[in-house]
């Protein structure tokens, strides 16, 4: 596939790995081992495990798998809210496939569907809108989740619903933003990260500027990266070069997709439809201020939080879960006592086992032999 295959070339990968090894051997970097690089985005986590990149990196270079997997950090009470909506007789609840398997306090949406609730998986929020047009006698709720990458799609779908005057379409909004969470991690004394692999597709929407504080105030190198193995290796090399030179800057490895300013039309749609929430809950991390959005008052008529009575009762994770520690890089997935025994991708106990982009699920899928 064009723009994919050429970024998987093994010969180039070998060369990049040799460069990474040679850069790691420099006295400046040897003096500060281990070098800890966090990949923020779950898409990167998945690629890293899928291509076994960790095992190819030199000793002393550690990858920390960050919080950028929206399904993983979805609190269980939000799934309970979806279940309460789906239990209404005249409702069709729609959402992305990833969200269907997330366990609530009693069950997942997939299990509710098996028991007869009308829950439908959609590929795009526009598909949910079409279901609303086709079923005027039902209330169609789209459970929208995801980072800035996905937010514009939901925003444009809402704008379209408003234009058409659809009265039976609602959004249950759990869109979250990555930058406040990066700031919270940087302020956490327990988190030790030297540099960041930045999220490529979030950045294609928001651009480079929102990360400037990471370099300026926290002096951490930050490289926006594509998702193929060569992209990730090149980004690691760029980060090591910055660390070697004692620099901290926001750089962009993924120039073929990410422009400096991001996507203006997408930003405009998001600004028109959403506003920041005071705080949002992240599974494994707790509540983080201004890390999520809700619909503005202009779109109140479409807000499922107003149209439905929601339980919204906080559900604690099982006490043995170590997701928070794994997310902060304090523990490897395999070191969790539940990993692979009581917690597996088919029966996830903790957040990070839920989606294939979660560190534990990716590790379980691709590295069982080493575990």
């Amino acid at each position, binding site marked *: *596939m*064009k*723009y*994919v295959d*050429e*970024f998987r*070339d093994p*010969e*180039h990968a070998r*060369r*990049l790995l*040799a*460069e990474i090894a040679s850069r790691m051997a420099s006295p400046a970097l040897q003096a500060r081992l281990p070098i800890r690089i966090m990949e923020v*985005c*779950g*898409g990167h986590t998945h690629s890293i495990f899928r291509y076994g990149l960790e095992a190819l990196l030199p000793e002393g270079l550690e990858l920390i798998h960050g919080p*950028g*997997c*929206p*399904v993983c950090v979805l609190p269980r009470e939000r799934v309970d809210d979806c279940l309460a909506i789906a239990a209404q007789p005249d409702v069709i609840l729609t959402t*992305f496939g*990833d969200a269907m398997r997330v366990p609530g306090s009693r069950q997942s949406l997939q299990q509710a569907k098996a028991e007869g609730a009308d829950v439908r998986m959609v*590929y*795009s*929020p*526009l*598909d949910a809108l079409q279901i609303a047009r086709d079923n005027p006698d039902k209330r169609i709720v789209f459970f929208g*989740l*995801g*980072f800035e*990458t*996905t937010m*514009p*799609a939901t925003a*444009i779908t809402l704008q379209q619903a408003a234009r058409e005057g659809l009265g039976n379409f609602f959004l249950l909004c759990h869109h979250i933003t990555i930058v406040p969470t990066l700031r919270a991690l940087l302020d956490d004394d327990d988190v030790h990260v030297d540099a960041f692999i930045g*999220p*490529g*597709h*979030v950045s*294609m*929407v928001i651009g480079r500027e929102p990360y400037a504080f990471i370099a300026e105030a926290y002096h951490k190198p930050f490289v926006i990266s594509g*998702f193929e193995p*060569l992209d990730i290796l*090149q980004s690691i090399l760029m980060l090591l070069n910055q660390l070697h030179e004692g620099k901290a800057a926001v750089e962009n*490895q993924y*120039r*073929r*997709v*990410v*422009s400096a300013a991001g*996507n*203006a*039309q*997408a930003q405009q*749609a998001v600004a028109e439809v959403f506003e920041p929430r005071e705080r949002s809950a992240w599974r494994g991390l707790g509540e983080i201020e201004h890390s999520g959005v809700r619909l503005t008052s202009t779109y109140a008529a479409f807000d499922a939080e107003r149209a439905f009575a929601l339980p919204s009762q906080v559900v604690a994770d099982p006490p043995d879960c170590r997701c928070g520690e794994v997310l902060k890089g304090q523990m490897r997935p395999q070191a969790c006592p539940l990993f692979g025994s009581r917690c597996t991708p088919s029966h996830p106990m903790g957040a990070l086992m839920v*989606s294939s*982009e979660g560190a534990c699920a990716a590790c379980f899928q691709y590295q069982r032999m080493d575990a």
Partner: protein
Amino acid sequence: MCLGVPGEIIAIEDAGSLTAVVEISGVRRSVNLACVLAEGVPPESLLGQWVLVHVGFAMSLIDAEEARKTLELLAELQNLAAAGDPEVRD
């Protein structure tokens, strides 16, 4: 979740609702162009353009020149290595 895949715009489906047919690995699907069309630009101008598709929306126009430059950089690494390696030089 933030998965995005490259595809080529091969037809305009409905200029009114800004939808195009995009071919992704041989599969054709309907994709919304609202995020990649500046105001006043006709959708037809994007025919043949590669885009990054996410949940049914084209979210970025893929810059062929930037892709070429990134690959060139990687190739340079390769050439430098070849020049510096005596076995290859011999």
